[in-house]
């Protein structure tokens, strides 16, 4: 059972209280974009075995979307943070690097 702390209301919520929203920090493409851009945005999602950034919604709590940094190979949670950012904040990156030496935020997982 996955437990994530909602960064807004501080509740430690188990996954039955949350809705998953898959990859975080997606760059959205709209009208006028190329087929390659649409494909990358809509289908070619990151699928790392290791560190991953995700969207979650505190559905049966405050109702807000937040983001989480998690390891898909061990289910370890590195931290959660509010959704109003375009990339993972430095303190989350530091937490991940403390646990996964050599990991870099450009999507390359070493776990």
């Amino acid at each position, binding site marked *: 059972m996955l437990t994530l702390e909602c960064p807004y209301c501080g509740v430690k919520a188990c996954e039955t209280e949350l809705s998953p929203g898959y990859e975080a920090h997606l760059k959205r493409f709209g009208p006028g974009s190329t087929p390659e851009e649409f494909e990358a945005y809509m*289908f*070619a999602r990151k699928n*790392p075995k290791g560190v991953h950034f*995700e969207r979650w919604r505190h559905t049966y709590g405050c109702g807000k979307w937040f983001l989480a940094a*998690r390891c898909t190979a061990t*289910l370890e949670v590195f931290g959660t943070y509010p959704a109003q950012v375009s990339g993972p904040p430095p303190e989350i990156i530091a937490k991940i690097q403390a646990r996964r030496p050599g990991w870099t935020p450009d999507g390359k997982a070493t776990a």
Partner: protein
Amino acid sequence: MKRYSVFAIAREALRHHMGWERAWASPEPKASYDAIIVGAGGHGLATAYYLGKNFGITNVAILEKGWLGGGNTGRNTTIIRSNYLQDPSAAIYEKSRSLYETLSQDLNYNVMFSPRGVMMLAQTHHEVRGYLRTAHANALQGVATEFITPARVKELCPILNIDGPRYPVLGALWQARGGTGRHDAVAWGYARACSAMGMHIIQNCEVKGVRSENGVVTGVDTTKGYIGTKKLGMVVAGHSGQLAEMAGFRLPIEAVALQALVSEPIKPCMDVVVMANTVHGYMSQSDKGEMVIGGGTDGFNNYTQRGSFHHIEETLRALVETFPMLSRLKMLRQWGGIVDMTGDRSPLISKTPLGNCFINCGWGTGGFKAIPGSGWAMAELMAKGEPGPLAEAFNMWRFKEGQFIDESVAAGVAH
């Protein structure tokens, strides 16, 4: 390879069963092969088998990081059916189902194909409409399937409660020649036949990197060293994203956990397969008497082969209403597999951006039924370098072009 037969059993019975051979050999890898298949699951082994059988290519190695058949092939609930909605799906799944009919004879290995009938319950009006549409599509595709009434459902499966109240049974899509098979035996049967053709099955050999020159694959780095190859087939289900990354491209695939469980063994009580897609539950009874139950997938990327507990609870809660007798059963074992999900819930059998490198994946929650047909189509793709009619529509570029083979609309899941 000595053939299995009634005479072999009699012969061995007279000499204390001392003459049975190993089913397949475990050689050390050679320096290079004409073709390498990564992944000794059902799809990888079937690909190798049809490369040899249909195209005479036998200088082949199948590399497996764990043990043969230990991935999803050995973890699934073995439902075999072919009543899909879209034409390309119906074609490949029906090819596969029909190959299953004679697979035991073909491989000289009992894969225990049991065409006992598969029933997909319609428990909402939306599902009734969806399955009626599928039944009509199947009639045009030449797939034998029919929509049956609740009374017929009850007759075919008396332990089913069709009255609800939450999930009343409004009818069902019934495929009389669908059924189950023995998952391990499918992998073992193909492995034995591949080994007999001189192919190398190399277990405990993980592929760590893919090497290429001028955009064409040349070999793979493995835990047993570098192995060269003219052609590479990646058939690793949940780990396809990893292999694609090694080969320098990204796939429209996400890996999530899917779980199943079995009950204690009981007397025979159910001789068909029942799927209840509204509640994400499906069930059949194994030859040992266990009720084999499959559930829904988790909603997040996961490589741990462990699913979330609440899915089991939800599946069983819903199934208990449809099968009231389940409430007294003890569940014995639960496990998970990592399934490879595409955006349209259809597989990829495709060339890739890397020359002579081919991919077969995306079977997600429903690829056991597809093993023979998928291997057949993948072998043709690898042998000729171009897809045949079965594989053509399943290319990886369909997402860019919007040419989806959408199997997710009708039921939400496909097993």
